[in-house]
Every structure is written in structure tokens, then in C-alpha cells.
């Protein structure tokens, strides 16, 4: 259904009356960031694939489209979103997926959501419908406002349509298991990542490293032999459970922290449980340690820490240096001068 007019009119009315809006898609990721403020605006009905020509490797859909519907359409044509986005629920929409900017286990080798985002149509802070980027893979006309939308949590505009580069599904996949400690797992995966191997996933938990290979069957089989795993299987379930945070690790009580680090960073010894994903570049901690200590450790290792799931009153995101914080405010004001979109969803200050 095309709800563009309704959405644009809602924004215009909100600007006129000075009423901020809380943009709601499938509401599967409201746990992330700070609670929504403002009047709810439902956008999930604005859905449907607008254009998909598999031969062009480009798909354009309305932002309210369900992620699962779009993925099904891709699968039918032997293609996929290589960044393997999590949905965290069946109702997840494409718009919410872009707004959060999450990518799944394949990310270090495939690239992230924003890497595949080619263009957007959105309602800006004045209720005007504008387009950036497009349905082509190379486009450097004007600033890349499309990619800026990825991960901006709906604070800069309301997405109407998004265009993505998509790729063929790998012809084959294999899962390899290795028994080893965390440090050894990180060292091994980063060493392998420097070699021409068809890696597409690598996570570690409780003494087991699990690696995925994707590509031509001859390649995955040859790589599996080369890596000499303790066990080889082709079970996709654990990768799905990892992506959707359904593994046992994620069901533990307590706060869930996400540390984004240079992949080869040495293990960080925090109290609690740790699951390493992205070959070391994304590390999950179930820990009750003080936030400051977690952040200091992450920063010392060259990365940052996000309180991914936890009490809403806590500081969720890694603080920015002053100059960058000021720039964020400038950018927010440039694109949403009336402060209409998802106020305080991403920052305590705006």
C-alpha cells in the first residue's frame, strides 16, 4: 500500500503544530537506544516492492515492507542481502532495519547494511519528499545522504523507499567447528581472513569456534580441508540463531553489551560471559560491570561499547568527543530543523 501522502501530510501537520513524531515500523527494535518520545506515527503499512530486476542486482522497496517478505522475494530469485540483517521479530520492516543499521554474521567479509544501501526516498523535516542516491551502484552526485540514513534511528527523516544492491546466494555453505580458547580463536580467524579463503562467518563461545565458508562448492570444500576442522556440517540454524540473538548466550539475564573492536584486538577480560562474533570485531558481553569500566576497556582496545539491551534509564551509547557531539547536533538541525523526528531516541541531548 502506498502511504506516502499520508506520511508526508503527517509530517507537515506535526511541523505546523510543533508536535514531534515517534516513527514506528514493526516495533521489533524498540529495545535499542532510548525510549521513543513524541506522537506515534505508524509507517509499516507503506509497503511493497517497487522495483526488482534480479539481472540489475538492485531492489527498491517501500520502507514499511516486512524484511522477511523482501528476503523471500530475493530468495526466490537466488539472491540475498549479503549483510544478513537481523530482524529480532517477524514484524521487522526494511525501514527499521536501515534506521538501526544492524548487520549479521557475514558483515566483516560482505560489508555492512550501509554498504549495500544505494538510494533513499524520504520525507524531510519540512514534510517534503526528497530523493538521494538512486538505483545505480555508482553515484557520486551530491552528498551521500542515503548512507547517512543507515543507523540514524529515524532522527533525520522518515524513509519512504530504499534501494539496495543485492547479490547471488552462495552456491554452497559449510560450517566448521574448532575447539579452542578465545584468544586462539581470534588469532586464527584474523590470520585466515588475510588469506584468500571463502570465509563468511566466525563466532566463538565457551571454547568452541564456529566458522562458515560460502561460495562455489569446490572452494568451500577445498577450504574446509585446508582448515582441518574438528567437525564439518552444513547446519544453517546456528547462524540464524546467532543473527537473531536466539542462542543460549543471549537468553541469559542481565545487561547485554556490544563491543565493536578492531577484529584482532586481544580478548578483554570482563566479568561475566562473552560471545565473540564477526571474527573478533563484534563482542557481546553479558555482564553487570560498571558501564564506565566497560567503555574504558573498549576504547583502550580501539573501539567502543554500546549497552544493547538494558535498563532504559542507563546511558546506552558510547559518548562522543565534544567536537563530534556538536557536529551531530548541527547535522540533526540541518536535516530536521524543527526537531520532529524521534526526539531523544538516539541521544540524551536531541
Amino acid at each position, binding site marked *: 500500500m502506498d502511504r506516502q501522502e499520508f506520511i508526508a501530510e503527517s509530517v507537515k501537520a506535526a511541523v505546523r503544530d510543533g508536535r514531534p513524531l515517534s516513527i514506528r515500523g514493526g516495533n521489533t527494535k524498540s529495545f535499542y537506544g532510548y525510549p521513543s518520545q513524541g506522537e506515534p506515527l505508524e509507517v509499516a503499512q507503506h509497503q511493497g516492492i517497487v522495483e526488482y530486476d*534480479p*539481472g540489475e542486482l538492485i531492489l527498491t522497496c517501500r520502507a514499511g515492507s516486512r524484511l522477511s517478505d523482501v528476503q523471500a522475494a530475493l530468495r526466490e530469485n537466488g539472491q540475498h542481502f549479503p549483510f544478513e540483517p537481523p530482524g529480532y521479530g517477524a514484524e521487522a520492516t526494511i525501514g527499521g532495519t536501515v534506521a538501526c543499521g544492524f548487520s549479521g554474521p557475514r558483515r566483516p567479509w560482505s560489508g555492512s547494511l550501509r554498504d549495500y544501501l544505494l538510494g533513499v526516498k524520504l520525507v524531510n523535516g519540512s514534510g517534503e519528499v526528497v530523493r538521494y542516491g538512486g538505483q545505480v551502484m555508482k553515484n557520486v552526485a551530491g552528498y551521500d545522504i542515503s548512507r547517512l540514513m543507515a543507523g540514524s534511528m529515524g532522527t533525520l527523516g522518515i524513509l519512504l523507499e530504499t534501494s539496495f544492491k543485492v547479490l547471488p546466494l552462495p552456491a554452497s555453505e559449510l560450517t566448521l567447528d574448532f575447539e579452542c580458547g578465545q584468544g586462539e580463536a581470534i588469532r586464527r580467524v584474523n590470520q585466515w581472513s588475510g588469506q584468500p579463503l571463502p570465509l563468511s562467518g566466525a563466532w566463538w563461545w565457551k571454547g568452541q569456534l564456529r566458522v562458515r565458508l560460502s561460495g562455489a562448492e569446490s572452494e568451500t570444500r577445498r577450504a574446509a580441508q585446508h582448515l582441518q576442522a574438528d567437525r564439518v556440517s552444513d547446519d544453517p540454524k546456528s547462524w540464524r540463531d546467532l543473527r537473531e540473538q536466539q542462542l543460549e548466550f543471549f537468553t541469559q539475564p542481565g545487561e547485554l553489551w556490544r563491543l565493536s573492536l578492531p577484529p584482532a584486538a586481544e580478548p578483554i577480560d570482563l566479568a561475566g560471559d562473552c560471545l565473540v562474533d564477526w571474527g573478533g570485531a563484534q563482542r557481546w558481553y553479558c555482564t553487570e560491570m560498571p558501564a564506565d569500566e566497560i567503555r574504558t576497556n573498549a576504547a583502550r582496545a580501539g573501539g567502543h561499547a554500546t549497552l544493547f539491551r538494558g535498563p532504559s534509564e542507563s546511558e546506552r551509547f558510547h559518548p562522543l568527543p565534544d567536537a563530534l557531539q556538536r557536529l551531530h547536533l548541527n547535522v540533526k538541525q540541518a536535516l530536521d530543523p524543527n526537531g520532529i523526528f524521534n526526539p531523544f531516541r538516539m541521544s540524551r541531548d536531541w
Partner: protein
Amino acid sequence: MNSASKSRLLQELQKVLPRQILLDSQEAMRPFECDGLSVYRKLPLLVALPEDTLQVREILKTCYRMKVPVVTRGAGTGLSGGALPVENGLLLVLTKLNRILGIDPQNRTARLQPGVRNLAISEAAAPLGLYYAPDPSSQIACSIGGNVAENSGGVHCLKYGLTVHNVLEVRLLTIEGEELVLGSAALDAPGFDLLALVNGSEGMLGVITEVLVRLLPVPETAQVVLAGFSSIERAAAAVGAIIAAGIIPAGLEMMDRLSVEAVEAFISPGYPQDAEAVLLCELDGGEAEVAEQMAAVKTILAEHQATSVAVSANETERLRLWAGRKNAFPAVGRIRPDYYCMDGTIPRRELPHVLANIHAASERYGLLVANVFHAGDGNLHPLILYDANRAGELEQAEKLGAEILSMCITAGGTVTGEHGVGMEKIDSMCEQFNKAELEQFHALKAAFDPAGLLNPGKAVPTLHRCAELGAMHVHKGKLPFPDLPRF
């Protein structure tokens, strides 16, 4: 007035900088009057060649205080006039900041000063079995800072992405001289993705002083196949079929008859002379995978009635087959004294249609157009041939160019795929974007550079300029900028 402000600026800069990094005479500044698009030339007030980041900061602080515009330049290989100096401004040349600050083999990254040449990165990483993927054709000379500013591509973009996909972190100085770190050595950073925004921002938002790029393992093997076709349509259909078969080639390039004739006359790479279109398809990866995919590609080429097929048997042959494509520009340059290179991108399915229109326009203008095409990603490089010494030919070439860009917009594409807007395509931007969109660009620029001192007049046209042009952005039947006064 110009000379007064010049000497005042020189005086102020000399207080904080060594005299020898500042050029002020016409003779010394002459080499910097243009970038790779030499039809536009202008001398700046001063040229500064800083040797470290501290000097860059002092220059920016001084210019900011004195409200002097700053144009940043790297190797000057850009093709859109993005580094064209402004008369009343300083040209900040970063070629002396050319050190590779470090290579991290475990994390597979290289930390670079902005003046490091693109090819030098891969050369430095080679002993580790790693390389830097984006390879613009000027890679021997162009610098990483400029690559980031333009979001440069190359022939391997379809599989390995553009600059934006291969940069992890950028250190940027604002016009006020404040340092920002965008991105990080991790795969993401908190806050907005300002790193994505800086890629391709054409020196409008800040001055890049350091870049962290990711390095990839060198593929085990690479093989290229060259195929001739009796028509552009057939070649285009073969490209679609290769991709529909689930194959993502490392490179997929097309050339039309005129380009093929030119390169054959220039370096004789052995391209088929009777073909209307030639396709180059490179596959890389593991030996077995490449062999499997090459067999599939050959079948597809045969099914699409390729008139000739040649597969590289070894590295020497692979390089020879590529040499034709890589020398296409200079080869075409021998046909006529000058050429003008366009850079539109279109959805690939529109190719036969757009090429036919280009051909018709070329006949109408009486100017030859040779076409080379990044077929995998739809990026078209029509080369308009002309002779600048003939009165009016340059203007005609520019008009034809603008028409070609209009065709790209109409086909659902963009006026620039990888060369940037710069000075060259600024008027075409009025056609691609409407008033609200352009206003948003200006607002974003002001968020970084409220005084508008960085590279003024480039990349995004003022609404006034668009109105004066009377650009034909007819959106849903409405005239462009209906609410702007017209004189």
C-alpha cells in the same frame, strides 16, 4: 584589492609557517591552475604545500580567521574540476603528506597520510599477500585523500566496492582547524555514519589528514575472457546473463567499435576488429572456482553469439587483454586533439537505448563519441572527441556532454558515477535534484562549514544558479523553482 588581500594573507601565514611551503608567484603557481580537467584554469591567491598536519591546521585557522576560501588538492588527477583553484582563495596541496603511517597485518589495515598514492598502498601491502581494492585508472598517480573526497571507483567496483566500502576511518580537520575522527579501526563507530558522508564530499566538508583503509587478501588467481559481438545489444544481453547466472565478475568492461579501433591502432592488444562491441570479463578467486565460472561464462558468451572469444592462459596474456581497455583513453585521444570524458551511470538494461541516443546526438553535433563502459555497474564513459583550436568546438562538446548527462538522468541514472560533480557537472545537478534536495545539501554543508569557505562554488549549485540556468527539472509536470524570482 586582490593583491592587497594576497599580501595580507601571505603575511599572516608567514607568522606561523615556513616561507618555502608557500608559493605566491604566477610562475610557481602555474602548475596548480587546473586538475585533470584542464579546460578549466584559474590561479589562486596562494598555493600552500604543508609538510605535516600541524601546518595544515595553522593554514586552516588563518584562512578561517581571515575568511579566505580554501580549495584542497591532492595529486590533481580529478576529472571534474573539483580541485580547480578559486581566485580569491588558497590552494591547499597535500602531496607532501605522503607517508604510509603503518600497516597492521593482523587487522589488515593501512594507515595513510592523504597524499599517499593509490597504487603505493597495494605495493606496500603486497609482501603480506594483501592489497587495497579500489583501482581508479589513475591509480599510479592519484592519492588516497582525493580518492576519499571523490569516492573513487575503478574497474573492480562491482565485486569489491568503491572507496566508501574500503575506508574504515578518516581524520578530518574542519575549516576552523578542529580535528574530527570519523569511523574507527573497528567496523563501526557510535553516532551518525559521517564517514559515509565524507566519502565523495569533494572537499566541501573538511580537509582529510589521515585515512585508515582495509586491505584484502590477493585472490589466488585471476583470468580474463575477451569476447566480440556484432551488436551492443548482444553484448549487453550477455552481461545480463552472466550476472543472472549468479556470477559476480571482478571486472566487466565493454567498449564500442570506435574505442576498439583506437586501441588496436595504438597498442595492438589483439582485439577483434570486426566487432561492434567488445566485452572483457575478469573472474578471480580460487583456481577451481575460477575454472568453473569461466566455463559457465564461455557457454553464456556462445549462447549470445559472441563472434570471438579469447581466454587468458597466463598472467602475461591477462595483462595484454586488459592493456587495450586501460589504454582506451589515450588511444582515443589520438583520433582528435582533445576529448571530453563523461561519467554518467545508468541502469544496465538501459544501455542499448542510451548508446543509440548518444550515437544520434553525436551525428547531430558532428562530433565523434567513443564509448567505454563499466558494464557491471552501469557506469558509462562516453569520450567526446573535438579540437579545441577550432572555434566553437569545445562549447559544442560541452553541450553534447550536457545532453548525454540528461539522457542518463532520464534513464533513471546519475550525472556522475565516479568522477564527481566538481565544477564540470554543476549545472547538470540542477536537473538531477529539485530545490528541496539542493537546499538539504546546502544545509548539510553548513553543518560542517557554516562560513562556506571550503571549495566554494563546487559540487552543489546554488538555487540562484539553477534558476538562472532555467534548468529543466520538470518534476511531475511542475516547473523547477516556481517560487524563485526570474529576471
